[in-house]
């Protein structure tokens, strides 16, 4: 088979949609090591269809109330706002991802669920204490004043230690959700995941920049 034919095959494989196997999610018994943190929720099992496309809420019920969703949107966009290179986090579906993440029945996700939901509550309590409003209702300078106290765990005051852990985890989730989208990949100028005739290694200008040419 020549390369052209093989690439055709490959494109067909990449595009192949719901599959030959009619796998019903949730029909398998829960893996012994997963924790069912939510009533009725189970993981995707050990044999999910890998060439399907999945959307948040499809595999397990989501969590965020309208209020929590609002807080999430404000906070994620404080972390990743729109700039000349790319849109804001909430504009590319990051809130859906975070909701999916904290709603998943796996142990690490359940741990994050507590961290995130308790973190939202803390933000509102702190906002009420400082400004008598919910976090999402503050102006951006007020929001940033709170974030500045918790954005660097190593330098946060002891009373903000837990809030700083929440912020670090929430920033990681926001960034992870964002840079895995097409807009996020473009922002980082990732140029792979495309078939090449040959792999030529780094261009000369790259080698020069690190002193290897």
């Amino acid at each position: 088979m020549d390369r052209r034919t093989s690439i055709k095959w490959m494109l067909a494989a990449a595009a192949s949609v719901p599959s030959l196997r009619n796998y019903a999610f949730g029909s398998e018994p829960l893996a012994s090591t997963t924790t069912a943190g939510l009533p009725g929720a189970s993981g995707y099992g050990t044999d999910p269809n890998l060439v399907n496309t999945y959307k948040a809420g499809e595999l397990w019920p989501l969590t965020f109330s309208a209020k929590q969703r609002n807080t999430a949107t404000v906070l994620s966009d404080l972390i990743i706002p729109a700039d000349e290179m790319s849109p804001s986090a909430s504009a590319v579906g990051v809130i859906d991802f975070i909701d999916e993440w904290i709603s998943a029945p796996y142990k690490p996700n359940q741990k994050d669920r507590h961290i995130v939901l308790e973190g939202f509550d803390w933000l509102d309590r702190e906002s009420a204490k400082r400004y008598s409003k919910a976090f999402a209702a503050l102006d951006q300078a007020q929001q940033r004043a709170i974030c500045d106290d918790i954005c660097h765990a190593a330098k946060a005051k002891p009373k903000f230690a837990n809030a700083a852990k929440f912020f670090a985890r929430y920033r990681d989730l926001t960034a992870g959700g964002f840079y895995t989208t097409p807009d996020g990949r473009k922002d980082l100028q990732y140029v792979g995941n495309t078939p090449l005739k040959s792999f030529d290694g780094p261009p000369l200008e790259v080698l020069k920049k690190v002193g290897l040419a």
Partner: protein
Amino acid sequence: MPFITSATAAKEHYDVIIVGSGAGGGQTAYTLTMDGAHVLMLEAGRKYDPATETPMFQTPDLAPLRGDGTTDKPFGFYDATVDGGWQVPGEPYVQTRTDDAGRFDWWRARMLGGRTNHWGRISLRNGPYDFKPYSRDGLGFDWPISYEDMAPYYDKVEMLVGVYGTSEGLENTPNSSPGCLLPPPKPKVSDLLVAARAAKLGIPVIPGHRAVLTQQLDWKTSPAKLHPGNPAAQKLIAEDMQRRAACFWATPCGRGCSIRANYQSTTVHLPPALATGKLDIVTDAMVHEVTIGKDGRATGVSFVDRTTGKQQHAAARVVVLAASACESVRILLNSKSPLFPNGLANSSGKVGKYIMDTVGSSLDGQVPLLESLPPHNEDAASGHQMYVPWWLYQHAGKLGFARGYHIEFGGGKGMPGLGTAAELEWLTGGSYGAKFKQDARRYYGSFVGFDGRGEMIPNEHSWCEIDPSVKDKWGIPVLRFHWQWSQHETRQAAHMQKTFADIIEAMGGRVRGRVETDGAKAIAPGGSIIHEVGGAIMGADAKTSVTNKWCQTWDVKNLFLTDGAPFASNADKNPTLTIMANAWRVADQILERMRQKEL
């Protein structure tokens, strides 16, 4: 009709039954059927077709949880493994210790092709020292064979599956015969920087060896070398080689490869074996016992058909176990009969003894020189373009630990994942907002990770047995594992940490996290590197080993092992290539003895 039902298989009488379809089973089936033997392969997992099931270009945003690993899919959603992991639902095992330093985690992959579908494709030959470790330092065991016995089979396997790399003439790092290796891929900038700076520390960095087709296989000349005097086999494999495409430098190998550009049993061994018309495969066949006749010879195997839950039996002249080291051990120990009350082939009492994994330890560094480089494609060969072979053979006995390790490393601007811009606080001072986006761009691709892979010496405290009470969902008794590292392994792990830190520093980089100087904490838990070997070691003496040098059990003449179970040591070299070369060697011997009517 190569894929058949268990009921159909039960009516046949085969030359050979092979239990397992991974590297060992796949190679055994290939070699036997190419020479005309009538073979039945039994696989515990489901049928699996890489051409239609491999998520080649899918991006993380299309997967649940951005493709991140879960207990259901430990290496990520798109990893090729289905129905596998360190925990398999309904198939428990028992650990006598659960702490990091004293436990063994058992990986299984219940699918056609087993763990070859997702493995790292790193294909290193054992060297001459690695077959005679006891003779060199008085520890562990010698193999009853030498490098010279295995070398022709390493050549054959490299030509058949396709392995890239170079012959560098380094100590105990063998050269391949001319025409065996494919050209290595071009290195990435991070590879070249590691090579340049490690060289200043006296650490050699050479092209890696991986089972990836950097160009089409040599289908014009290799077939005659693979199957001399067998024109039918030559024609068949020449045709199949032409159907495999070369790598197109995209998509991670761990997902499997729908264009067959890397090795997995399902894309390389099984298609030509099936094309001979001599191979029948039954999937969902959970073998639990080798049956024995009055003459003490194996008559076949009993298995549970997982689709019906029914017991079945298949019969053959020869039985080969290649179910993965520990699963083959489990089958032997569960095969109790009046003739073999302690389990089959266990007159030495050594079945289950000397389970080994690989010593593993990791460290990452952030390298300012690699920040903000102009964008360019770094998908490369999906890893291991270069590596560090063990370089301190001349210091043996002076390091505080015997044996050595090699270093796998990687960096570059790969497909952004969940962790790409995570945990940057130590570099950014806690930035968020516009500054965070600038920081993410700056640090993306500036990390290099190092993984040590070292030799574990077999010991009396790392073994498995049948648990007296726990059974799996089919009622088959399960394994109970005992595990203990020696100081040879833990000190090696500490040495890895120091070496990685030295290289990172030599690159002008900063270590992420801390350098763990306590080897017991630096070493990854047993089983986590998934290089499980031993448990039925080969030897020169029936009193101290389970098989002879042909991996034929001392006690049952028509019972052979071709997975990692007969390994008498576990060199730092990843075991898969040696499993395949050894399986070919053993299969040749089975063919010869069948011709001589000994079997």
